[in-house]
């Protein structure tokens, strides 16, 4: 798994400007430290999808969200997906937050880029499996995107038995713990068009400092 350093810089707010030598050096060493102490893990499971106005039912679990509904429009199946870098990444972050804040923010950006790169890799594997059945993947759609409520974290985690299998849980306020984690619904569709909408382009937050392009 290769983590793109430009992504790390983007998370650090460089907005396309080149990184300075010391920051780039720190990025390399943070990525190495993270790779040495984390074992990324993921789970997925494919469920049938039923759509209705303003909601979808995935594997028997009804989720109210117009945006998710629109996102997986036309899909008969969807994969529920979860991935995490695990607890050690959080420990490192806490540790550097007390000893070296500049390294902490770089490590934070590296771990964010790393979990994304890992998810992309896992989804490519999924896409390979789906292709054998003539199906294509829609991009990952996570609780918190658009009007897809965060409270569905709990349902998604339960559908995959995440706590037991990969140690991934949610807090009472539906934040994932360990924090460097992702849950998502991925539509499977027979039509190839519009399958790779850039996440940023689809997002309503026009002034986000991390926005691509």
């Amino acid at each position: 798994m290769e983590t793109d350093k430009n992504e790390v810089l983007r998370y650090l707010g460089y907005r396309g400007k080149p990184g300075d030598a010391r920051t780039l050096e720190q990025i390399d060493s943070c990525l190495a430290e993270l790779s040495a102490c984390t074992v990324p893990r993921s789970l997925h499971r494919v469920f049938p999808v039923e759509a209705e106005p303003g909601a979808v039912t995935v594997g028997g679990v009804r989720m109210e969200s117009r945006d998710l509904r629109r996102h997986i429009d036309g899909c008969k199946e969807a994969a529920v997906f979860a991935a995490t870098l695990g607890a050690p990444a959080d420990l490192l972050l806490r540790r550097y937050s007390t000893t070296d804040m500049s390294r902490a923010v770089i490590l934070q950006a590296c771990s964010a880029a790393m979990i994304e790169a890992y998810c992309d890799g896992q989804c490519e594997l999924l896409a390979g499996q789906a292709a054998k059945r003539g199906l294509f993947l829609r991009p990952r759609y996570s609780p918190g995107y658009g009007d897809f409520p965060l409270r569905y974290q709990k349902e998604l985690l339960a559908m995959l038995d995440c706590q037991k299998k990969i140690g991934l849980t949610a807090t009472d306020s539906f934040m994932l713990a360990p924090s460097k984690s992702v849950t998502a619904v991925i539509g499977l569709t027979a039509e190839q068009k519009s399958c790779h909408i850039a996440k940023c382009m689809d997002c309503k937050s026009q002034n986000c400092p991390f926005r691509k392009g």
Partner: protein
Amino acid sequence: MNLLNTLGKRLLFFDGAMGTMLQERGLGPGEQPEPWNLTHPEVICDIHRQYLAAGADILKTNTFGANREKLSGCGCSVREVVAAGVAAAKKAAKGTSALVAMDIGPTGKLLKPMGDLAFEEACGLFAEMARAGEQAGADLILIETMSDCYECKAAVLAAKENTNLPVFVTMIFDEGGKLLTGGDIAAAAALLEGLGADAVGFNCGLGPEQMKHLLPRLRECCSVPIVVNPNAGLPRSVEGRTVFDVTPGEFAASMEEIAAGGAWVVGGCCGTTPEHIAEMVRRCRAVAPAPLPRHDRTVVSSYAKAVVFGGRPVLIGERINPTGKKRLKQVLREQDMDYLLREGVAQQEAGADILDVNVGLPEIDETKMMIRAVTELQGIIDLPLQIDTSSPEVMEAALRIYNGKALVNSVNGKEESMRSIFPLVKKYGGAVIALTLDENGIPETAEGRFAIAEKIVGTAAEYGIEKKDIIVDPLAMTISAGQENAAVTLAALRLLREKLGVHTSLGVSNISFGLPQRDNINAAFFVMALQNGLSAAIMNPNSQAMRSACASFCALSGADDRCMDYIARYSEQKNEPAPAAEGISLHDAIVKGLKESAHSAAEALLADTPPLEVISTRLIPALDLVGRQFEKGTLFLPQLLMSAEAAKAAFEVSRTKLGTCGESVKKNKIILATVKGDVHDIGKNIVKVLLENYSYNVIDLGRDVPPERIVKTALDQDVKLVGLSALMTTTVVSMEETIRQLHRAKPDCSVMVGGAVLTPEYAEMIHADSYSKDAMGAVRYANSLFGG
């Protein structure tokens, strides 16, 4: 059948999977199985009967997730679900000798600081289940599928405190022998044995083949009976369904090897069926339980790893102790936890194996401070801790929340000391440092100290504490008060090691008290003590002399195989920090973000410039410059923070100087907190570093902070500015509530807010006084408010 009497006389058999069987009967994905105890009791009872028919001795109740947290919203209580679950198993077992195990799985949440569940809340959830299980008539408690040592500790404590049932514990490891939270087998075994689990072992996650390979590692470090309940192989996903491939025949064959390898109780987990269990019982019935291994290992542990006494010298870092340390006293009074944590990290980086934690000062609440120090240290450092306090109350509070098997500092030969400390060691686990002094003081002879050690070991045995868990400290006393002091201590070490067979520890540096250049004497005495059998030293890991004495001793004694460590450490003396660039000004060092240079430039300046002048004319202007460049977008967050770290190093020097000349920086207080429900605190921490650079006294309340606590702190300490951070739209609600309460209770207090989802408009809507788009924004607002 009496469980504890039968255990070890013949092999005992657990049943197999419940969830797998229920899925076949129609349990949906993500549906909770436990309420089926009430809605489908006959199905549950039937599954138990099938396992009984297969030959199981112990039935696991369908109560894995029957805790208040997981059952919330399903309309039934823990007591109902557990009672029905135990009843179904008992009904099936009626008329047989089979036993019913109250099954307790994880809460489904992560404990703080990883997640938001407090340790005592976890204890409460487990206690409720355990009590309900005992009341319903369970014969034992099985705590299973645990992947976090800390949660597992909460469960075992709850079971032990609330029931009289035997407690078995099985945890879930990966193929490398690691828990999901990073702990290894030795650490988990030390913790669980210390807590008095009646049997420990593995379940779930792996198949029997993988567990077979982990079993010898558990046998190496565990003296209690072992339980092995594997899955029917590694799970595989076929068209979205999880399947397990190991057939009953293959399963039974591996289980036979596992039984022959030393497990006393075997059974199955996910994917196993009555056929698997029947085949396993048939093949294993003739296997006689192997004798329990007896280990005399002296071991302490953190959540992640175990430290064993007896090989290389164990180095116990002594720096977190206010005795004789002015700066640390100030740190404790100001509750500057970051300083304390940095001391811990620095000692680990310098090579400490264990960290001593002593936070006793007459004017502070030691219990509160100790709990906080232990909690925060174990949140970022994976070394075992040595709890150092003279108060039994503080000791108990610390041992309770400590995530591992602690080193207890200390007990001594006084009746009162042993009476108060040994029960704690027995209950919570631990190895204890035993000082050779009693009601009559410190004996002057080696034999006298040996006699006290013998008495302590004997008394410990009466409490059920083994000799291996006693580490004797025969006390080093300064040779400046009596030159024979060294010889007496060394002779005592020899006696203790050879005649009593215990491990030993010394506060080595006491030997040189009152002498100049103490490191010289300390290092020489350290080597002499090691040569006389010393196992551990409480010392300053930052001392070069002590570290090289230790490394040289290991090379000379053969403890360092082929001198590899010695060579690695000393062949290239590259570990020295880069020397600070000569002649670079404090201003430039800060702008360029050079920490060491800033430190030495500040030291040089302070020789003839008053500290306050250094701060106001050099430090702050440099920071302002960097801040402006950041705001203009010509430099970025990592660089801003490198400068901030450099400024902090300079500030720390100035502050020490200020302390000595009796001045203090005029500091306005600012509260920072991440609001309730929000556990992401990196943004808040960035703001904190910068505000501290500008001499503000930041009261950091941490994350997930309830509004009431913020209001109370603002009132108690008359704080005029509060900074709140929130990351998610869901937690902005808590932010709004906090602002409402603050404005009502303390109208003269301003609130500034920031965080990923906030905008100036949003901030205004929730009535914040100011919105900061980044950390510099927060500094600017604070400066405008306080006229800084």
